[in-house]
C-alpha cells in the first residue's frame, strides 16, 4: 500500500528593484520578507537548520563532482502561522507552502503564497523613496539564461527502489509538460534562435542537461536525487521535483500536483507503466516543450514511438486501474481523486481536439492566444522587446499590471479559502501543530523547521519537539490540547516530552 502523498510546493520568485542604480537582489529579497514579517506577524520565529542535509543523495552515494546546494544560514528566514517557510534563497524571495494532504489543499496554499508576496510587495513599497519600486514575478526565467525554480515535494515509500521511481516517473515528467507548462517567448538553450523557437510550452525545459543528479543550480537533472526526507528516513523519502514551472493557472498547479501524486502512489504500489521510457530523455524534454502543435513523435527505449499525449493517456489508463484496486485515499480521498481524474481526461481530450479551448485555464495556451493577438495588432516579430516585456508581465504579481489575472483564468480555490490559508495551517498534517504553536506561543518558540520545533519554556534547557511523522500533529490529534494549554510549558508537560 502506497504511503500518503503528503505534498508541498516551493517557489522562488523573480524580483526587480526599479529605479535604484545598484540594485542588490539579496537586500531587496530581505526587504520583501522583513516587510511582511514586521507588518503582519506578532513576532518573528527563525528557521532551525539542525536537520538540513541537502547534499545527501538518494542513490546512496555522492558523486565527487556533484555540487550540493549550500545552506545560507545568514539570510532572512521566517516561519509563518500557516506553517509555511518564507525566506531568502540565494538572491530570491522563496516561499515553501506547509505540508498538505492533497492537491486541492496545496493549490489553495500556492495561491495564498501569491497573496503573501503581493502584501509583502505592498508593505515594502510603502517604505521606499518615491519613484523606487520592488516588483515580484511568479516565473522561472529572466529570458537571459538565468532560471529559478518552482519545486514540488512528495512523500514516497523508502522501501520502493529509487531506480524504479526514476524509470517510471521520467516519461511522466517529460510528457506532463503539455498541461504543466507556463509558456515562454524564445529559447535560452545554447545555439537556438527566436526563428527556431519563437515560443515554447515551458519556462524550464531549456535548463535541463542531465537525466538524474543532485544539482539544482547547474547541469540540472530531470530527476533530482536530493535525499532529505524531513521525516523518518527509515520509512520515507521526499521526492524533490525541480523540473516543473511556476504556474499562474490554478488548474495547472492542481493538475500538476494531483496527477504527479497519483503516479507516485502507483509507483509505490508497483502499478505504474514501465514501458514508456524515452530513448533520449533530455532531448525529449526540450523537444516536447518546443512542439506547440503537439505533433511530435518520440522514440522510446523499447523501439516504438509515441507522442507526449499518447504517453499521458497510458499513464491515465494505468491510473484508472490503480484507483479501481486501491481507491484514492492516499491522494486525499474519493472526491479530490475523481475530480482530478475527470479534469486530467478533460484537459488531455481538449489538447487533442481543440487546444485553444484551454485559453482560460492553461498558461501556455492563454499566452499563445494573447501574444498572437498582440503581434497581429502591432505587426511585430516574436523577437521584438515588447514580446519579451509581455512575457514578463504575464507573471507580474502587481494587481494593476499582471496579465494572468486580467485574463480571468479558471479558479480552483475561492477568495475565502485563500484568505484563511494566508494565516491558518492545513488541519491535516503536522503543519497544523507548527502553525498553531507559532500563533499561540510565539514568545516561547526559539526556532522551527519541517520536522521539529524548539521551545524555551523558562528555567529548563531548550526543548526540541520532534515531528518526524508528517501525518501526526494534525487538528484531530492536537487541536483541543492546544486550545486547553495557555502556555507552551503546559503543552510540553501534557505532550509528555
Amino acid at each position: 500500500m502506497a504511503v500518503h502523498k503528503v505534498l508541498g510546493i516551493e517557489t522562488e520568485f523573480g524580483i526587480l528593484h526599479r529605479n535604484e542604480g545598484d540594485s542588490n537582489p539579496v537586500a531587496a529579497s530581505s526587504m520583501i520578507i522583513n516587510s511582511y514579517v514586521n507588518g503582519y506577524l506578532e513576532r518573528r520565529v527563525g528557521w532551525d537548520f539542525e536537520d538540513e542535509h541537502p547534499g545527501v543523495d538518494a542513490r546512496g552515494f555522492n558523486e565527487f563532482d556533484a555540487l550540493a546546494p549550500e545552506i545560507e544560514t545568514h539570510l532572512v528566514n521566517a516561519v509563518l502561522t500557516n506553517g509555511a517557510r518564507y525566506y531568502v534563497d540565494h538572491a530570491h524571495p522563496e516561499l515553501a507552502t506547509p505540508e498538505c494532504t492533497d492537491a486541492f489543499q496545496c493549490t489553495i496554499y500556492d495561491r495564498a503564497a501569491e497573496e503573501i508576496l503581493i502584501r509583502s510587495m505592498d508593505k515594502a513599497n510603502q517604505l521606499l523613496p518615491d519613484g523606487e519600486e520592488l516588483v515580484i514575478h511568479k516565473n522561472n526565467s529572466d529570458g537571459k539564461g538565468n532560471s529559478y525554480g518552482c519545486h514540488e515535494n512528495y512523500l514516497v515509500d523508502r522501501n520502493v527502489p529509487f531506480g524504479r521511481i526514476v524509470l517510471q516517473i521520467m516519461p511522466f515528467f517529460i510528457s506532463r509538460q503539455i498541461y504543466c507548462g507556463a509558456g515562454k517567448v524564445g529559447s535560452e538553450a545554447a545555439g537556438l534562435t527566436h526563428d527556431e523557437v519563437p515560443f515554447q510550452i515551458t519556462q524550464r525545459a531549456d535548463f535541463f542537461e542531465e537525466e538524474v543528479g543532485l544539482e539544482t543550480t547547474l547541469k540540472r537533472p530531470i530527476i533530482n536525487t536530493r535525499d532529505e526526507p524531513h521525516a523518518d528516513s527509515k520509512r520515507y523519502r521526499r521526492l524533490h521535483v525541480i523540473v516543473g514551472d511556476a504556474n499562474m493557472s490554478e488548474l495547472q498547479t492542481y493538475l500538476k500536483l494531483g496527477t504527479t501524486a497519483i503516479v507516485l502512489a502507483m509507483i509505490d504500489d508497483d502499478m505504474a507503466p514501465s514501458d514508456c521510457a524515452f530513448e533520449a530523455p533530455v532531448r525529449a524534454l526540450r523537444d516536447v516543450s518546443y512542439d506547440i502543435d503537439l505533433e511530435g513523435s518520440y522514440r522510446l527505449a523499447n523501439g516504438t514511438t509515441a507522442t507526449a499525449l499518447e504517453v499521458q493517456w497510458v499513464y491515465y489508463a494505468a491510473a484508472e486501474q490503480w484507483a479501481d484496486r486501491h481507491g484514492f485515499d492516499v491522494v486525499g480521498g474519493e472526491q479530490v481523486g475523481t475530480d482530478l481524474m475527470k479534469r486530467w481526461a478533460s484537459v488531455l481530450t481538449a489538447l487533442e481536439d481543440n487546444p485553444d479551448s484551454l485559453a482560460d485555464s492553461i498558461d501556455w495556451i492563454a499566452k499563445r492566444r494573447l501574444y498572437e493577438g498582440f503581434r497581429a495588432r502591432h505587426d511585430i516579430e516574436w523577437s521584438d522587446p515588447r514580446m519579451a516585456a509581455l512575457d514578463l508581465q504575464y507573471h507580474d504579481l502587481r494587481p494593476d499590471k499582471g496579465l494572468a489575472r486580467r485574463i480571468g483564468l479558471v479558479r480552483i480555490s475561492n477568495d475565502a479559502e485563500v484568505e484563511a490559508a494566508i494565516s491558518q495551517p492545513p488541519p491535516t498534517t503536522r503543519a497544523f501543530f507548527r502553525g498553531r504553536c507559532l500563533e499561540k506561543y510565539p514568545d516561547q518558540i526559539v526556532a522551527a523547521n519541517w520536522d521539529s520545533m524548539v521551545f524555551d519554556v523558562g528555567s529548563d534547557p531548550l526543548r526540541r519537539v520532534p515531528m518526524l511523522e508528517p501525518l501526526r500533529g494534525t487538528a484531530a490529534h492536537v487541536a483541543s490540547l492546544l486550545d486547553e494549554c495557555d502556555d507552551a510549558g503546559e503543552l510540553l508537560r501534557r505532550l509528555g516530552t
Partner: protein
Amino acid sequence: MAEREQKRRPTPRTEEPEVVEAGPNETGQELKAELDDLLDEIDEVLETNAEEFVKNYVQKGGQ
C-alpha cells in the same frame, strides 16, 4: 506500448469529460471581441519602456 491500439484514448470511467470551453454561448466573433478588449487593456498597462524593462530584468542565483 507495443500495440498502437493501446495508445488510444481510453474511455473515462466516470462520465464524459467536459471540454472546458471559454463559455457555453460564445461564438468566434465574441471571442475575438473579448480578445480585442483584453489587448486594449494590455496596451494601457504594458510597461512604457519595454526595452529598458526587459534589459534590466536580470535574475541571478536561482535553483
